C-alpha cells in the first residue's frame, strides 16, 4: 500500500489528462515566491501541506495567500509544521479557484464482487464515509470491458451534469480509469472534484498504489510512506513488521498465525508491541535478520510462534540461535518459543542445546510470555 502525497497523485492525474488547478510543489519559501514571479502560480493562491493524514483543512494545513510575501510566510509556516506526527517536506501551491459545486469520484476494488467499483457522489469535499448511502452511486466496471459510455452517463446523472461539464466529466473518468489500471492503483480518488464555470477541476488527489505491483512501477517503491523507521528497514528486507503500542514482540510465520498469537496474548493481559511475520522462508539468515530487527524495537519479551510448513522448524531454530549470539547485551530480551510442524523434533533439539525450551501448548506459552514481559517491563 503506497499512499501518494497529493502532489504526486496530481502528477499522475496530469499524465492522464485530468484537469488540475495551476500550481506547483515547493520545498522552501523562496521556491514559492519564485513560482509567483514566474506566474507558475497565479494569485490569490492556496498552500497545502503535503502530508498523508486526512483533515488538513480543519487542521490548519491548508492556507490561503493573496500576495507573494504572504505566500512566502505561509509556506514557511507550513514547512515548520508537524501534522499528526508527519513532518511537512513539501507544500503544494495552487491558484485559488471560484468553486460552484464540489463532487466526489473514485475508483477502487470491490473484493466481494472481484470488480473495480466506480464511486460518485454529488456531496464532495467531505469524507465519503460521512455521506449517507443514498447519496452515493456505485457502478462496477469489468476489467475486460473497461469504463463504458453508460458508466460515464450514469455518473453525469448522479452529479447532475450535462453539456460541456458532462463531456469534461467523461474525460476525467476515462483518465481516472486508465490511471487505476495502468498504475496498478488500489484507489484513485478525486475529492473534491470542483465545478468551476463550465469546467471541472480535480482539487485534491488521493492515489494508493499496490505494493505487489511495484515490480512494474519501481518509481513507487522508493516513495516514503507512513512507516516507522524500523518498519522501513523491515520492508527493505522483505519482512512484514508492524509496530504497535505494547511491549511484547511477536515473531510468527504467516499473517493469520501472527494475528492469532496477538489475540491470545491480549487475552492473557499482554500488550503486543511488534508484529513480525516471517512469512514462508527456509533461509536461517532471514530468521536471524528478523530477530536482530526485533531486538532494535526493544521488546520487554518476545514470543516466537512457528508452525513449520514452507518454513522448517530447524531452519528457524538455527537462525534464532545465530541471532541470540549476536544481539548486543543491552538489546537482550526474555524469549518464549513454540515451534511445531515440519522438522519439529530437529528444531526443538537445536533450541534445547541453546537453552531454550519449546512450549507446545499455545495457552501456556502465551501466559509465559505475558509473565516474562510484565516482570521485565522497562
Amino acid at each position, binding site marked *: 500500500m503506497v499512499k501518494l502525497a497529493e502532489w504526486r497523485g496530481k502528477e499522475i492525474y496530469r499524465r492522464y489528462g485530468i484537469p488540475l488547478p495551476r500550481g506547483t510543489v515547493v520545498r522552501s519559501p523562496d521556491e514559492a515566491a519564485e513560482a509567483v514571479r514566474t506566474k507558475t502560480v497565479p494569485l490569490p493562491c492556496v498552500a497545502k501541506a503535503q502530508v498523508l493524514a486526512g483533515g488538513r483543512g480543519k487542521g490548519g494545513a491548508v492556507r490561503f495567500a493573496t500576495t507573494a510575501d504572504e505566500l512566502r510566510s505561509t509556506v514557511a509556516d507550513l514547512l515548520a509544521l508537524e501534522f499528526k506526527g508527519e513532518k511537512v517536506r513539501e507544500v503544494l501551491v495552487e491558484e485559488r479557484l471560484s468553486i460552484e459545486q464540489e463532487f466526489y469520484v473514485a475508483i477502487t476494488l470491490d473484493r466481494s464482487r472481484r470488480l473495480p467499483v466506480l464511486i460518485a457522489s454529488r456531496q464532495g469535499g467531505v469524507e465519503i464515509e460521512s455521506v449517507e448511502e443514498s447519496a452515493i452511486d456505485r457502478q462496477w466496471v469489468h476489467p475486460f470491458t473497461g469504463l463504458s459510455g453508460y458508466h460515464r452517463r450514469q455518473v453525469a446523472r448522479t452529479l447532475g451534469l450535462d453539456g460541456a461539464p458532462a463531456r469534461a466529466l467523461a474525460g476525467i473518468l476515462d483518465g481516472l480509469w486508465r490511471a487505476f489500471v495502468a498504475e496498478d492503483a488500489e484507489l484513485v480518488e478525486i475529492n473534491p472534484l470542483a465545478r468551476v464555470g463550465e469546467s471541472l477541476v480535480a482539487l485534491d488527489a488521493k492515489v494508493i498504489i499496490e505494493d505487489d505491483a511495484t*515490480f512494474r512501477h519501481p518509481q513507487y517503491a522508493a516513495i516514503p510512506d507512513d512507516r516507522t523507521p524500523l518498519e522501513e528497514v523491515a520492508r527493505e528486507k522483505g519482512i512484514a513488521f508492524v509496530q504497535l503500542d505494547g511491549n511484547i514482540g511477536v515473531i510468527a510465520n504467516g*499473517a493469520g498465525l501472527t494475528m492469532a498469537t*496477538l489475540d491470545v496474548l491480549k487475552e492473557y493481559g499482554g500488550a503486543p508491541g511488534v508484529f513480525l511475520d516471517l512469512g514462508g522462508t527456509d533461509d536461517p539468515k532471514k530468521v536471524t535478520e528478523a530477530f536482530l530487527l526485533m531486538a532494535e524495537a526493544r521488546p520487554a519479551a518476545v514470543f516466537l510462534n512457528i508452525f513449520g510448513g514452507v518454513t522448517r522448524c530447524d531452519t528457524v531454530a538455527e537462525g534464532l540461535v545465530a541471532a541470540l549470539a549476536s544481539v548486543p547485551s543491552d538489546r537482550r530480551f526474555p524469549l518464549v518459543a513454540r515451534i511445531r510442524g515440519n522438522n519439529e523434533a530437529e528444531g526443538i533439539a537445536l533450541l534445547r542445546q541453546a537453552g531454550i525450551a519449546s512450549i507446545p501448548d499455545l495457552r501456556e506459552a502465551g501466559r509465559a510470555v505475558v509473565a516474562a514481559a510484565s516482570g521485565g517491563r522497562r
Partner: protein
Amino acid sequence: MTVLVDRDTKVVVQGITGHQGTVHTRQMQRFGTRVVAGVTPGKAGTQVEGVPVYDAVADAVRATGANTSCIFVPAPFARDALFEAVDAGIRLAVVVTEHIPFHDMLSMYHYALARGTRIIGPNCPGIGAPGVAKVGIIPNVVFRPGPVGVISRSGTLTYEIVSGISEKGLGETTCIGLGGDPVVGTSFVDALPLFEADPDTKLIVLVGEIGGTAEEDAADYIRAYVHKPVVAYIAGASAPPGKRMGHAGAIVLRGRGTAESKQSALRAAGVSVARFPYEIPELVADRLRAASHR
C-alpha cells in the same frame, strides 16, 4: 468423498524446477498425490523427483492427461502461467505464488471463470484431502482422515488448526486454504456449497481474518444455504485499525472488516465462533456430538 480433488486428480507443477516447486513436488508425492508432470520453459526432457518436465502446459496435458495445476512461478509471471493452464484445459489451478498484483488477479479470476477453470489462491496453501491427494504446500503431518471440512483464508494458522482437529482424533475430509489476498479465485461463499454437498463432510470449520467482508458474505450464505454445523475462528480481533497485518487483505480500514462484525454475523447465522484457535477442536467435537444425536 472429498472436495475439488479425488483419485483422478493428476497434477502438473508449473515452476517445478524452482526450489519450492521441487520441495513440494516431493511432499505431494509422499502424500500420495499423482504428480504426473512439471513445466518449466526450456527444461523439457529433464525430470524432477522422477516427474517428467515439459516446456508448456499444453504439452504436459497432452502427454500425461494432467487436469490440475499447482503454480509456483514468481509473481511477475503468474498471470501468464495461469492463462497457459486455462488454455491448456486445466480445470483446477492452485496458485501458491504470493505477491501477485490484484489487477493481475482480476484478469486471472475473470478469465478462469469465463473458461470454467477454478482457481484456489493466490498466495494460498492449497488443498489437502487425507488419503486422497494434496495440491499445494500444507504440511503432510497435520492431516488425518475424518468428517471435518476446513476452509481457511490463512496459511500456517490453518496448519495449526487442522493439526489441532487431527490431534483431537477428529480428522478432515478436505482442507482448502483460500489465500488471504484481496482478490481470491475461490472465496468462502464459493467453497461452502462444495462441503455442503459432500456427504462425508459432517461439519465445516471456517478460519477467517480481519479485512474485507468475505466472512460476512459467508455468514449470509450459511444462513440461507448451509445446513451442516459450522465452527469459525476470526484472527486479528486484537489488531489495531489502519495497520496492514502482513496479508494485503488483513486490514481494518474505515471501520470495515473488523473481527467483531465478522463474529457477530457468523453467530447470527448459527455458527459456533471460537475466540482462540485452541477452542476449535472442542467446539467441533461438541457440534459433531450434537448433530449425531439429532
